[in-house]
C-alpha cells in the first residue's frame, strides 16, 4: 500500500509549516507499513477531538469517528470493548485532553485500556486564535491572559506515569523518523499508550527554535523502570528555562488491561448465540 492512498479528497486547511503535517505523514506511513505487515488498515479506527489536530481524521481515508472537544477516549474505549480486534488510535490536543477531557485521560491510563493517544501538544489554542493551554509555560501571554498566566503547566508524561499508562513517549514534529518509531511502538503496545508530540503552532506559539536547540533523543534508559521514567519526565517541566528536553520512549511495561479483564464476563459469549427468550423466562420464574 502506498501511504498516499490513505489521503482523502478533503482540502487541507492547516497553516503552512504547521507541525500537524509531520504527525499526519508519520501516521500515514506507519499505518501503510502495518497494513503490509498484517495489521489490516480496515481494522484501524481513528478518533479525534476538536481543534486543529482533529482535522487529521478528515484527511485520512481510514475509519474514523470525529468526536467532540475532549471526548476522544470514551468513544475509543467503547469501540475497543465492542471489538477487541480493532486498533483504536486517538488524536487529541493539549486543550482537548488535558483541560476539557482530563478525567477521561486519567481514567484511560488507570484502566490501561488497549488504545493509543497521540497528543498534539502545541501548548496553545490555535482554532480559537491564541489562548493559553494546560501545557503553556507559566507567564504565557495569550488572548485570555494578556498579563501572562499565573499557573504552572501540567507535565503530561509525568501525569500519565502516575496515572497508570503503560507506554509513555515524547516526540517532536521535526524528526519524523523518531516520530514514526514511537507511533509504531505505541500502536503495537498492549495497553494504554501515550505519545506526547511537541507540535509547533507556527501562527500562535512558534517554538521551532527553542525545540531545535534543546531537544535530544534519550538513549540507554531502562523503560521498565518507573523511577527512571519519572526522572526523565521531570527533567523538563514545560516551563521556561533553557534545560534539555528529552525525546523518545520513557516507559514501557506490561500490566493487566481493562479490555480483556471484561472479556470473561461479557465478551466470551456472543450475545446472539444465547437463547434470550429462554433466559428471560427463567429469570421471570425467579421473580415470582
Amino acid at each position, binding site marked *: 500500500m502506498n501511504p498516499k492512498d490513505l489521503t482523502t479528497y478533503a482540502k487541507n486547511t492547516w497553516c503552512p509549516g504547521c507541525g500537524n503535517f509531520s504527525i499526519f505523514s508519520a501516521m500515514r506511513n506507519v499505518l501503510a507499513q502495518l497494513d503490509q505487515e498484517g495489521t489490516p488498515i480496515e481494522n484501524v479506527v481513528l478518533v479525534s477531538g476538536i481543534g486543529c489536530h482533529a482535522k487529521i481524521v478528515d484527511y485520512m481515508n481510514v475509519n474514523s*469517528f470525529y468526536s467532540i472537544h475532549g471526548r476522544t477516549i470514551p468513544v475509543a474505549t467503547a469501540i475497543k470493548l465492542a471489538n477487541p480486534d480493532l486498533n483504536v488510535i486517538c488524536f487529541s490536543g493539549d486543550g482537548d485532553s488535558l483541560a476539557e477531557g482530563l478525567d477521561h485521560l486519567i481514567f484511560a491510563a488507570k484502566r490501561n485500556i488497549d488504545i493509543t493517544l497521540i497528543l498534539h501538544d502545541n501548548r496553545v489554542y490555535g482554532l480559537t486564535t491564541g489562548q493559553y493551554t494546560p501545557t503553556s509555560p507559566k507567564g504565557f501571554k495569550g488572548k485570555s491572559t494578556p498579563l501572562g498566566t499565573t499557573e504552572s503547566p501540567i507535565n503530561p508524561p509525568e501525569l500519565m506515569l502516575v496515572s497508570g499508562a503503560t507506554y509513555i513517549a515524547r516526540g517532536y514534529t521535526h524528526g519524523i523518523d523518531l516520530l514514526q518509531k514511537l507511533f509504531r511502538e505505541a500502536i503495537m503496545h498492549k495497553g494504554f499508550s501515550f505519545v506526547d508530540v511537541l507540535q509547533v503552532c507556527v501562527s500562535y506559539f512558534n517554538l521551532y527554535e527553542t525545540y531545535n536547540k534543546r531537544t535530544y533523543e534519550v538513549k540507554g534508559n531502562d523503560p521498565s523502570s518507573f523511577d527512571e521514567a519519572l526522572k526523565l519526565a521531570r527533567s523538563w517541566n514545560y516551563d521556561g528555562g533553557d534545560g534539555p528536553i528529552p525525546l523518545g520512549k520513557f516507559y514501557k511495561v506490561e500490566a493487566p488491561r481493562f479490555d480483556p479483564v471484561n472479556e470473561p464476563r461479557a465478551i466470551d459469549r456472543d450475545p446472539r448465540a444465547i437463547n434470550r427468550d429462554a433466559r428471560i*423466562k427463567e429469570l421471570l420464574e425467579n421473580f415470582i
Partner: protein
Amino acid sequence: MDNFSTLIGGIAGDGINEAGATVGRLFSRLGYRIYMYYDYPSLIRGGHNFSLVRASRHMIGAHQDDVDVLIALNQETLENHAFRLTDKSFVIYDADKVQYSLKQKGCGLPVSAILKEEEALPIMKNTCILGGFCKTVGIEWAILEEVLKKHIPKNLELNLKVAKRGHDSAMEFCSIEKLNSPALPILSGNQAIALGLIKAGLQAYVAYPMTPSSSLLDFMARFAPDFGLKVVHPENEIAVMLMAQGFAYAGQKAAVGTSGGGFCLMTEGLSLAGMAEMPVVIMMGQRTGPSTGLPTYTAQSDLHFILNAGQGEFPRFVIAPGDAQDAYYWSGVALNMAWKYQVPSFILGDKTVCEGQYSFDLDDAGELEEESPLLWDGLEKYSRYKYTETGVSPLAFPPRKGQAIKADSYSHDEYGVTTENPKITKDMNDKRLLKNSSMAKEMEEYESVKVFGESRSKTAMLCWGSNKGVCREAAEKLKLRAVQVLVLSPFPTARLKAALEGVERLIAVECNSTGQLARLAGFYGFNTQERILKYDGRPFSLNDLEADLRRVLA
C-alpha cells in the same frame, strides 16, 4: 375482597424493601395482582422507610392511603401511619419496641425476645414479623415457607424457625380469599426496562449510578453473564454518553441510564448523537428537582428538557412507560427505533415507575422482537451519510475491507468528511429531519395512546408515565375517560385526536407544577380545561386523585 393494602415500615437498613417484596410474593401466590410503592429518604441507615403493598383482583399501578394491615417495626411507623387506619384495619407490631394504645385490633409479637432466644440476626425481625403477619391474615404457613425458601436461601433454617415462632405467637384476624389466578412475577419498572432492552437485542449498558436509575445498572451488571452483555460504569455521565456512541459506531446496541443531573452532563453527547446519527437509548428516570432536589422521590418535570436537550435541531424518539408491562414492551420498541432511525431514543421514567413493583404478565406485555436496522448492501463505495428517501442511511461497521466508515460531529458530506458548504449543510439537516416524519409514519401502527375507563365519557384525564395506574383506576371508579400518551416524540397527533373524540372537558394529571404534557399537547392543538398537579415528590394516591377530581368536577 377486591383490594388489600399492607404497609410495613421501619428504619433504613431494616430491609423494608425486601420485606415489602415478600408480602407481595405472598399475595401473588394467592392469585392477586400487586403494586408496591417504596418510600425511602436519601440515607443509608436510620430514617423512616416504608413499603406499601396493594393487592388486587385486577392489574393495578397505584396505592391507596388507607391500609388494611400496618406492620410496625418501630414506634415511628405507628405514629407516621396511624392516619391510614380504618375501623377495620389492624396492626402488627414488635411488642418489644412499640407502645400500642390505638383502638384498632393489634397483635404484638415479642420479636426482639424471639431473635435473642434463637440467636438470630437483627435483619431476621422481618421474617419473624412476616410469620406473624401470615397468621393474622390467614395465609397458610406453607406459602410463607415456600417464599422464604425461594427468596431468602441464606440462613434458611434459622429464618424459618424465627418466622414460625412469629407465626405461632400471632392470632388470626381475617382470612384472605385465595383466587383462581396463577401467580405472576413481580418486577420493578427498571427490571422490566432491562428485560425489554435485552429482548430487543441490547449488547451493552453504560451508566454512572444515580437514583432512580441505579437499580437498572445493578440489574444489568448482575445479569450481564446471562445475556452476554458488556456493562461499564465509567468516570461520569459525559463518558457514559460518549461510550454508548463508541459501541454504536462499532455496531453494538447500547443503552445508558441516568436521572436529571446526570442527563445534564449527557446533553453535549446527545447533540453529537443527533449530528453523527448514532443510535443510543437513554433511560432518564425523573426525580424531584431542580438540582439535587429530593433524590429518592418522584417527579415528571423533565419532559420539556428531554424534548429540547442538546444544541441544534435533530429528531429523537421519546416514550414514557406507565408500569412494568409498558416498560418492558416500550423499552424494546425504543431500542428498535433508535437503530432503525439512527436517533437518540428516550425511555422517560420517573421514580414511581422505575422503583415501583408491579405484577408482570409477559404474555400480556406485547410481542417484542429485535428488528434489523438498515444495513449496507456492500455493492458500491460506502457512504456513512448517504441521502435516502427516508433519511436513513445504511449502516456498516468496521472492519470492512476497502472501505472507510467515517462518523462526524461537524457538518459533513455523505462520505462523512467535514464541510462548511451551505447547500450540503442544509441538505444534511433536511435528511436528518426527514427521519422524524419517517418515524412518525411507522408509529401510526403502534398503540402510542391508550384509553381507559369510560371510553365515551365527555370528561377525560390526560396523563403520561406512572400516573397511568392511578388515572385508570380513578376513571373506572368515577366513570371518566383516562387517556395515556405513551409516545411523546414524534407526537402522536392523530392517535390522540381519536382518543379524545367527543371529549368536552380535558383534565391534565401530572407530577409537576406547570402541566408539561398539557403544554405540549396544547402546541398540537389539544387544549386542557383543568390541571391536577402534584409536585411534593410523592405519587398520587387513588384518594388524592379522587379528591382532586371531585373538587374539579364539582
